[in-house]
């Protein structure tokens, strides 16, 4: 950013800005800190104190419980696999299509765009999609979690718009130099769009990480469950979700301790939070840096 060009620091605006941002950030992060604290406490303490910053009864029991079988660890592995491979698939499909659609002179462009926008508003629904997956013999495979959501029309349109705003001069200049379309995409358009690409990498990755519904539908083999499926089980179980209480005969199914619930939340959230710092450097790149004049 043009940080050296601004006026002298310390103005009223700046100070209030910093204060406001600090307060907002704290409000955003403090509840999560309570959850982290709770995950290190005993159930008895949580019942008594509800929320606290430092647990009086520090214990790792919740985490020990979670990782005592391989179920949770394995599901984390599954989630990571799906997130990484899935995001690569997303980026491949989305970027190629967005780039192609960004060219206004492309014949048939508007038809395709209309098709895409149509799918944002109308959809076949759960069962028809399930049947397609089944016909493709993708049930119970990881592909079923990565292909049906390969392109988010929303992301596609925004990336397309970013590509559209790249200066046309670049394209002409590169073509004169004998660059192919694919070369253009790979060597010029992409590097210049890094903040946008990084953004949607993050969006897609988070989407994969947080998804549980697709797994519930398409995956029957419990060893293939990603983390969020398990997480949701625990959280909902201890919330005694409406109607399900009838299934919870007390001596058959004991709800998990609150501390375990919190520990699972921590385990489910921290990994994906760590992704952002890695992508951060791409967000800040000042892009065009005078590559094309006029």
């Amino acid at each position, binding site marked *: 950013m043009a940080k050296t060009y601004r006026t002298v620091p310390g103005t009223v605006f700046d100070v209030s800005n910093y204060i406001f941002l600090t307060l907002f950030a704290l409000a955003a992060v403090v509840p999560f800190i309570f959850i982290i604290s709770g995950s290190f406490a005993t159930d008895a303490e949580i019942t008594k104190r509800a929320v606290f910053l430092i647990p009086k009864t520090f214990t790792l029991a919740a985490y020990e419980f979670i990782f005592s079988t391989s179920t949770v660890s394995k599901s984390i592995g599954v989630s990571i696999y799906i997130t990484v491979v899935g995001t690569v698939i997303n980026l491949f499909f989305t970027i190629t299509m967005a780039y*192609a659609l960004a060219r206004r002179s492309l014949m048939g462009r508007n038809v395709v765009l209309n098709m895409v926008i149509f*799918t944002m508003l109308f*959809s076949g629904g759960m069962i028809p999609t399930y049947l397609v997956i089944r016909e493709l013999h993708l049930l119970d495979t990881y592909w079923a979690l990565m*292909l049906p959501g390969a392109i988010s029309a929303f992301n596609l349109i925004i990336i397309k718009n970013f590509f559209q705003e790249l200066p046309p001069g670049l394209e002409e200049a590169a073509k004169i130099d004998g660059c192919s379309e694919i070369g253009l995409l790979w060597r010029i358009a992409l590097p210049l769009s890094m903040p946008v690409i990084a953004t949607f990498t993050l969006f897609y990755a988070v989407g994969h990480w947080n998804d549980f519904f697709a797994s519930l539908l398409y995956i029957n083999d419990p060893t293939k469950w990603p983390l969020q499926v398990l997480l949701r089980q625990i959280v909902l179980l201890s*919330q005694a979700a409406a109607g399900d209480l009838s299934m919870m005969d007390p001596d058959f199914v004991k709800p998990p301790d609150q501390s375990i619930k919190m520990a699972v939340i921590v385990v489910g959230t921290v990994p994906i939070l760590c992704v952002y710092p890695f992508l951060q450097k791409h967000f800040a790149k000042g892009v065009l840096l005078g590559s094309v004049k006029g």
Partner: protein
Amino acid sequence: MNGVTELKGLQPSKSYRPSVMSRLKRDRWLYILLLPGLLYFLIFKYVPMWGVLLAFKNYQPYSGFIKSAWVGIDHFRLFFSNPEFYMLLRNTLLLSFYNLLFFFPAPIILALLLNEVRIMLFKRAVQTMIYVPHFISMVIVASMTYLFLTTNGGPVNELLFSYTGNKIEFLASPDWFRPIIILQTIWKECGWGTIIFLAALASVDVEQYEAAIMDGANRWRQMWHITLPSIRSTIIILLILRLGNVLENGFEQIYLLLNPLNRSVAEVFDTYVYFMGITQGAFSYSTAVGLFKSVVGVIFVVGANYLAKRFGQSGLY
């Protein structure tokens, strides 16, 4: 303004327009790039599209599509003749409208504020912190809201009580329902929503700022003339797309806060369909309502896109 100018617009007569074949040939690599995505949409979005027709049938999963009986527009009739229809419509639209009015600008403002921060470490720290709520599941957020606002020992009411001797039934009151929903949404999604704007801001040409300073522009002018316009197209696109979901309300959030005492303002189409689904078997009826929402969404999107174009913006296309 930007983008490649249409060849057609410049050509005075047909004979100069390249033929279909030559255009296909010229752009063949683009078509190849287009292919994977196109296949994706066809297979995973258009093949299941027959599901839309479920709205006109009484679909039973076991019987399958063919054997389920046609009911024509019965579902729609049931839907529109529901005496609570107008209440649902009003609640849904109002909530959406408040969301647009209060929540939509929030990430933009936050992004702009963040943009003004010069201490990189602070900026990065704040950014990471404000993303956290996005990852916390709605179920937890609802629990936290309850703990926070309950009259039974919740901190907000305890404070109120010690200062004014009164407590407010936030969670049971129809008047507070919408503000609580909006505040929840802001808390949960505002930080995450800044990402896309910050990405757009990162693409702004540094030189423009330099030129502006040299012309004597102060920070407000810089923001008004350079920063804001740079994200204008992003804002407009997001707005148009958001309008496509005008009848969507975030089912889970509302369901968790819904109770008999605030139902008059809280019940929206999504929760209504859910409760119908429990007795009804969901599919056909919810497809019908979904179809209704989609049609309304189309109207809004087309309208918004048209307006955007009228004002010289780029719109969806």
